[in-house]
């Protein structure tokens, strides 16, 4: 039998390693920027922060950013929440297919969808010409290159987060509550006063995620010419004022922390009503409601998936364009797949170790907060921090001169999300399993790999798949650090997009989308195959 103290030491050493990895990957690139912005020629100097944070321009920027993010969150909720209820409550026909189709916008890089919407809403686009004909003569056609256009694109990109938050809440909803309520009230009233209030915290969690993602998005407002904080940060680095760019990340950090606190204090406790155990609802909604719900879902799929992809396909014709894309962008496909696989494995591995070692204690909460930093300071600023940290002689230089820096950029940016997924998995673990193993004298390491790992496989697969999708589409943090002679698909696409959505760009966008969707489908299939282990983990 292994001595318990050895176990404690091993676990402590492993925890320290996880802390060290997170610090190097996520904290130091951000910290180095703040130190350089604050300490100027050996003296503490807060001038950049004062001049940036106390200017009236900041209030305009803040208003713009909150308007775009808040508008996107509201519209995404209006689109996504009814779809979620239609899938999981009304149980519309072909809901597995609909679920898969409704997930597509969130899997595609936002700049691909922005290009597609710009095509659709342009003067010659399907929606643009239709809207132009509907409007009274002389009235300007709504342009995608505006705040409402940006809100629309971001909402149609991120609404699946709200949909799946609603689906997740309903899958954990104890159907007996509804059955009991039906004894005293009509069905519509029960839905309004029992089902919606109990699932609302989850829906609002989805809306909050949309708010944060829209707030931090650089590529869509940049493409659509709307100034938000991430765009301003990039423009500040255009005048080589790295200290000002760093200072401007503070309002973003503050907004993210407010959103996180709102979730932790207000929304999370209210989720306690959901039991966490799947109990099939025996009640069925009326066929009429189901039909309406199904029509709504298909309408949303048509507008958010088929229409953008079809407009890109039409723009990409003739078909030989695809051959030309393949011949000229093969290298970029290879680089992106490599970066995607390595980033996903790094993220899933680190997030698993973090979840298994630190559990759900205070350390884990602090670590999650720390991991928010590189996510919240936006990609362009993170890449400047990565240059400052890794572009040095010796081992850091080897990392900086290779694709490893791109992997680290993706890792730093999405560690927060990966850790969140594995933390959710860790919370479902029954602590008694480990206690039983300890009583049997099984070492902590063996228990981790023999008990925790197998039970966490569904979450690991989900985390790996999502991390792969995010890394392949990542642009913001990689655009300044990609090593010479190497380009990812995202960077090449973004470079070409500014020449306008021509056939080549449309074909490359669709092929990128195809790669991402294949990876997403594989991960979803694997998750579906092994996701039935949930009950065993309780």
């Amino acid at each position: 039998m292994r001595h318990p103290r050895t176990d404690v030491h091993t676990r402590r050493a492993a925890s320290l390693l996880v802390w060290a990895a997170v610090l190097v990957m996520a904290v130091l690139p951000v910290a180095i920027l703040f130190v350089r912005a604050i300490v100027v020629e050996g003296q503490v100097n807060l001038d950049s922060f004062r001049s940036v944070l106390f200017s009236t321009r900041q209030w305009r920027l803040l208003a713009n950013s909150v308007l775009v993010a808040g508008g996107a969150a509201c519209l995404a909720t209006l689109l996504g929440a009814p779809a979620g209820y239609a899938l999981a409550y009304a149980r519309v026909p072909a809901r597995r297919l609909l679920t898969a189709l409704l997930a597509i916008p969130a899997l595609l890089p936002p700049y691909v969808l922005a290009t597609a919407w710009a095509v659709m809403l342009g003067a010659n686009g399907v929606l643009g010409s239709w809207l132009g004909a509907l409007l009274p003569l002389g009235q300007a056609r709504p342009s995608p290159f505006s705040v409402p256009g940006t809100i629309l694109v971001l909402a149609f990109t991120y609404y699946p987060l709200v949909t799946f938050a609603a689906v997740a809440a309903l899958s954990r909803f104890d159907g007996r509550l509804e059955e009991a309520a039906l004894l005293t009230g009509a069905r519509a009233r029960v839905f309004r006063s029992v089902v919606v209030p109990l699932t609302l915290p989850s829906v609002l969690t989805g809306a909050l995620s949309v708010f944060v993602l829209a707030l931090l998005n650089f590529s869509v407002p940049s493409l659509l010419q709307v100034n938000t904080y991430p765009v301003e940060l990039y423009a500040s680095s255009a005048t080589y004022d790295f200290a000002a760019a760093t200072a401007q990340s503070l309002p973003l950090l503050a907004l993210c922390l407010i959103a996180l606190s709102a979730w932790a204090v207000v929304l999370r406790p209210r989720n306690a009503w959901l039991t966490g155990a799947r109990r099939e609802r025996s009640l069925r909604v009326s066929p009429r409601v189901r039909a309406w719900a199904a029509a709504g879902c298909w309408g949303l799929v048509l507008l958010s998936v088929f229409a953008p992809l079809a407009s890109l396909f039409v723009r990409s014709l003739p078909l030989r364009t695809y051959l030309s894309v393949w011949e000229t962008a093969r290298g970029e496909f290879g680089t992106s797949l490599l970066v995607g696989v390595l980033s996903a494995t790094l993220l899933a591995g680190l997030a698993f170790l973090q979840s298994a070692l630190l559990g759900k204690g205070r350390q884990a909460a602090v670590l999650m907060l720390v991991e928010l930093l590189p996510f919240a300071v936006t990609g362009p600023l993170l890449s400047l921090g990565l240059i400052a940290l890794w572009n040095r002689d010796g081992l850091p230089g080897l990392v900086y001169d290779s694709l490893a820096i791109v992997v680290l950029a993706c890792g730093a940016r999405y560690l927060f999300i990966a850790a969140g997924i594995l933390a959710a998995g860790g919370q479902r673990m029954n602590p008694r399993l480990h206690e039983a193993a300890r009583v049997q004298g099984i070492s902590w390491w063996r228990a981790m790999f023999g008990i925790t790992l197998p039970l966490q496989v569904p979450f690991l697969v989900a985390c790996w798949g999502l991390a792969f999708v995010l890394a392949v589409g990542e642009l913001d943090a990689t655009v300044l650090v990609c090593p010479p002679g190497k380009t990812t698909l995202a960077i090449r696409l973004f470079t070409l997009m500014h020449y306008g959505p021509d056939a080549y760009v449309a074909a490359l966008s669709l092929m990128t989308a195809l790669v991402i969707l294949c990876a997403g489908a594989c991960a979803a299939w694997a998750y579906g195959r092994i996701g039935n282990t949930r009950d065993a983990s309780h």
Partner: protein
Amino acid sequence: MKGLSMFKEHRSYMRGILLVTACAATLFLAHGCAREKAPAVVVYTALDEMYSQPILSAFTEQTGIRVLPVYDTEASKTTGMVSRLVAERDRPRADVFWNNETAQTIVLKNKGILEAYRSPSAESIPDAFKDPEGFWTGFAARGRVIIYNTDLVKVPPSSIRDLLKPEWAGRAAIAKPLFGTTATHAAALFAAWGDGEAKAFFHGLKDNQIAVLAGNATVRDQVAAGEYAWGLTDTDDANGAVEDGRPAKWLYPDQGPDGLGTLVIPNTVALVKGAPHPDAAQKLIDYLLSPQVEEALSKMRSIQIPLNPNVVASERVPKVSDTRTMAVTFDEIAARMESTAVFVKEEFLQ
């Protein structure tokens, strides 16, 4: 026991992930080892990939030196790349900076990021397009032009000041004057007119609802598509629309006897201070300044204007000697870049 059986059940998925990762890691290492074998030169280039890539490939064919390029995105033309060069100054990774304009190159010179190098290939290039201290050399220029839609405009505008006329309110476009040649053009206007007049001009653009688009190529596309009647862009972009047979033509603005003249902006090439491969870098600079490169660039869609008088360009390429150019030096323009960028950011990034 349930955990163990589940582990066996799901082992295949974990194996799959680990196998894919192992393959990726092997590829990654193999790629890293292979990289060091051939001599290489790293170039950061702001010239569009479609024009710069064939030139760089020809250099590799001729010398056997591999070129590792970093291309800039249209959205952040030059500026993102210059930010990277500034951020990497303590340990430069670039050997050569091939810019598609002058101002940002001079900013880099003033920040101590460039190294002086007088290329023997640059002897025939006029002094006006070379840095007196040898930190950069100009070649293959572009001009700022008015592009107009022939279906929408019968009498084309002749001056950039026409952007302020009420008849063009909301019907003309420029690129965001924070990046690329439009930023250089904005700084040139500040240098030529002084702060007061230049600021009044840019305020006038806003009052007249002149559209500010992502880049010069977008201005070209939107004018050719009829979204806007006319706009300001570069010769290379404008020529693309004409060659594609779209309803567009272009002309140089302010060419009258008392006119302001247009801005002619050369490509610039410079050696980066502390370049990891200085010998290969000098060879690449010599190659880029050779007559054959200017000739090749003039024959492309971009119709870049040769500066070396020994290069015979085709008829469709406008000559610098026939054009009235703005009476400002590149150093004067560069001195205005940062203050202009601050003003423009305040005015146009709302």
